[in-house]
């Protein structure tokens, strides 16, 4: 009996590997995605152009400007001479941010009154603009501290910000562990989702059904390769994260693999479900696509789950990718303890039980 299942598993692996098309699907898109996502999926804001309209001739304004110019984020300062040019620079998207220093700036500062500078942000890029504005605020705050120190005025309580787990806010550290989940999902889904559909198209599925293989043996034979290939793909990305991207891996690798295996079971269940329903590879790919896009969008990979409307946050509880991402970021960056990992693993285990039983049930019904 295990001999039969073993023969099936060997065959599955061989046919995935020897088929040019599926080998391509397994290797090229994940690599492209790894490269593109790792480098392009960045919320970093660098190289910001600031349009500067300085109406003040005084020393104080020049000091502030020099401080801004010294910050690495604000690489380019575009000096304009009037209000209209400032507006045009923003309209044309030449500058993401405008800074207007009023005429009385130096005078008011010297006289000890507070002075106000005006910051204009391009709302068409409000996220980046806000972050850039945040950098500017930080500069202004330290400028103020310097002024206060010079005047030896008492300072109030200061604000000290410390970022845990990812002190330099490297996008790579966040994106690459996330990709472990996202890309293994793609691969496992495609492998299992296409396997039965491909056999149906080739006519080999009938050939399988007339052999003494029992339905559950076929099911196991179809599950194992997805799991195996998913784990290999995951390991490759984990290896890349260490060797190439140098992302810290603070937690337990065993926990990581355990959670990944449960996650893959979930995904494979869905893949088998799609497989059982689809009669052509085309339909299977469509099915996989329609499952993959929402699970990725609503996982927290691109934008945080907490930013979604409440009803949608509830909906994401049935999204396995959401749970695995918590584990991945936790184990990679936060040295997450087993108890907390378990919090995310059990929902995936429940989902896996549901998708696998559903697939087995559908598989029996759609066998012929």
């Amino acid at each position, binding site marked *: 009996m295990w001999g039969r299942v073993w023969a099936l598993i060997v065959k599955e692996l061989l046919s995935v590997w*020897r088929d040019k098309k599926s080998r391509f699907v397994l290797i090229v898109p994940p690599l492209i995605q790894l490269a593109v996502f790792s480098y392009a999926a960045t919320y970093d804001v660098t190289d910001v152009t600031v349009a500067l309209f300085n109406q003040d001739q005084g020393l104080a304004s020049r000091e502030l400007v020099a401080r801004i110019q010294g910050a690495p984020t604000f690489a380019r300062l575009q000096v304009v001479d009037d209000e209209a040019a400032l507006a045009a620079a923003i309209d044309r998207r030449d500058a993401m941010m405008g800074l207007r220093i009023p005429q009385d700036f130096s005078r008011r500062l010297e006289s000890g009154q507070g002075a106000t500078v005006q910051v204009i942000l391009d709302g068409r890029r409000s996220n980046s603009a806000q972050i850039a504005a945040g950098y500017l605020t930080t500069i202004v705050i330290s400028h103020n501290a310097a002024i206060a120190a010079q005047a030896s005025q008492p300072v109030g309580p200061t604000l000290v910000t410390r970022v845990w787990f990812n002190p330099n806010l490297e996008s790579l550290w966040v994106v690459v562990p996330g990709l472990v989940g996202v890309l293994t999902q793609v691969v496992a889904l495609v492998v299992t989702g296409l396997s039965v559909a491909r056999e149906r198209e080739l006519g*080999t599925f009938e050939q399988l059904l007339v052999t003494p293989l029992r339905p559950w043996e076929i099911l196991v034979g179809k599950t194992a390769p997805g799991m195996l290939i998913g784990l290999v793909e995951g390991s490759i990305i984990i290896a890349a994260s260490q060797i190439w991207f140098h992302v810290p891996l603070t937690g337990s690798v065993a926990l990581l693999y355990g959670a990944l295996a449960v996650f893959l079971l979930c995904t494979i269940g869905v893949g088998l479900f799609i497989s059982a329903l689809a009669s052509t590879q085309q339909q299977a790919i469509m099915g996989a696509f329609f499952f993959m896009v929402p699970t990725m969008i609503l996982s927290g990979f691109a934008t945080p789950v907490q930013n979604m409307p409440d009803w949608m946050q509830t909906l994401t509880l049935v999204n396995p990718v959401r749970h695995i991402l918590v584990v991945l970021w936790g184990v990679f960056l936060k040295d997450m303890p087993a108890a907390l990992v378990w919090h995310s693993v059990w929902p995936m285990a429940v989902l896996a039980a549901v998708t696998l039983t559903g697939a087995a049930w559908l598989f029996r019904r759609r066998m012929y």
Partner: protein
Amino acid sequence: MDALVRLDDVRKSFGATRAVDGVCASVPVGRVTGLVGADGAGKTTLLRLMAGLLAPDGGTVSASDALGYMPQRFGLYEDLTVAENLSLYADLRGLAPAEQGDTFARLLSFSGLAGFETRLAGKLSGGMKQKLGLACALVATPRLLLLDEPSVGVDPVSRRELWRMVHELADQGVAVVWSTAYLDEAERCHSVLLLDQGRLIYDGPPKDLTQRMRGRSFAVRGIMDRRVVQAAARRHVGVADALIQGAAVRLVLAEGAAVPAAAELGAPQAVVEPVAPRFEDAFIALLDRHGGPVPALPEIVHHPRPRGGAVVEARDLVRRFGDFTAVDHVGFDVAPGEIFGLLGPNGAGKSTTFRMLCGLMEPSSGVARVAGIDLASAAPEAKQRLGYMSQKFSLYPDLSVRQNLDFFAGVYGLSGARRKAVCGAMLDVFALGPMADTNAGQLPLGFKQRLALAAAILHGPDILFLDEPTSGVDPLVRREFWGHINTLAGDGVAVLVTTHFLDEAEYCDRIGIVYRGRLIAVGSPEEIKASARNPEQPDPTLEDAFIALVEACDREERS
């Protein structure tokens, strides 16, 4: 004579394969020219070269511009209606709107599609699609009509109609090129271009080629066991071909060979009579690629089975799809050592019957038993004892030959040394050794078919299910294939086969004709033929009998 196509030393290669290799020929007006050859002989490529869809690598092709072309899958838009398809091609081919009405009316009545104008092309039967495809190719009254395997998947009745239409066109002065792998069709052409591996090996009227075979075709009649006689004849020096045909065995002698005596064929009481040669005889003689003796099948496959009783039982089988009854109370038995053929037009229910018997589909009612085991209750036990070969090549194209055999041996529970021995023997018997590491998908069709058979029998089944096993392969491979089947039947293996080829049905011990979900006739080929005998047709072929039975059934339905 006026020629509409001239081919001068035409060559075309795809990678390393020479699809068309130095063909010189011409196609005359007012004739039906058959483009004949086995699958992969280069027919489609040559036709596409004539249609200007491909450019030749060498040589010249000159063909009339006024051409109509029907590709293998007819080129119909399945979600357009009959009328919409016609008017699309009319507009594309520049038929003036004023003429369209008359032309459509003429074409629709010519093709027998009048009354179906608003039906979607996808909802037409195979034969009707074929006729619509032809009508679309004819819409701008071409002088040259190129038809790529128009009779594939068309039942014998529609096939006859199609031939009638084509001959009518030729009589009106159209030059028709009809490509086909069926050798009986070649005889209906005025002239034949016979292709083999891209080369033109014969150009002329089919009769001339057949005439060369005069005095070399014989029938051995009055025999007890056809398969014994066939096997003996095969071994006999001087016999180029031995073929079962109903109750008789047909012999084709090698050039200059003496007629074998009945006793030499293991049937002393039999009579050896000369018969009229067929095109196929000539084809076999021309392509004589006989190799050495074929090694015997390994013992696990080739061993005597117990006789007696029925090993395949269909009892009152019914299968419904919604309101539609695909199989309507069909019942028959197959005994060990018997070859039972299921015949019928597409969609008649023969595949559905077949699928229920090998456990691929559950019957709505009735019982399907294999080896005495009800498929509904203990399928795996029954399946261990059956072998199955489907009409589509259904092995894993990306696995090598050896990996395919290994896999099937594995799922049938063979392991270790036994698996190795069986797979090795299969490679030898089916001459697959040199290709053991080639991907199955890249094998030539004949080898694919051998591999499929090898995979279906390597576990030594007692019952063999063959679904249109030889469609598309050339007559040589078909003969080899039936040689193995006959050996197995001789061992007591029960064989259930569906087929389109009526001459293949002649190899069966009994045949059942399925039409509109019912089994309308069961009997030996001779009995079926006898049932159609009447004063007009004193010696009906199986095709005549088939058509007569189907028409009688239609008449009954109507009244």
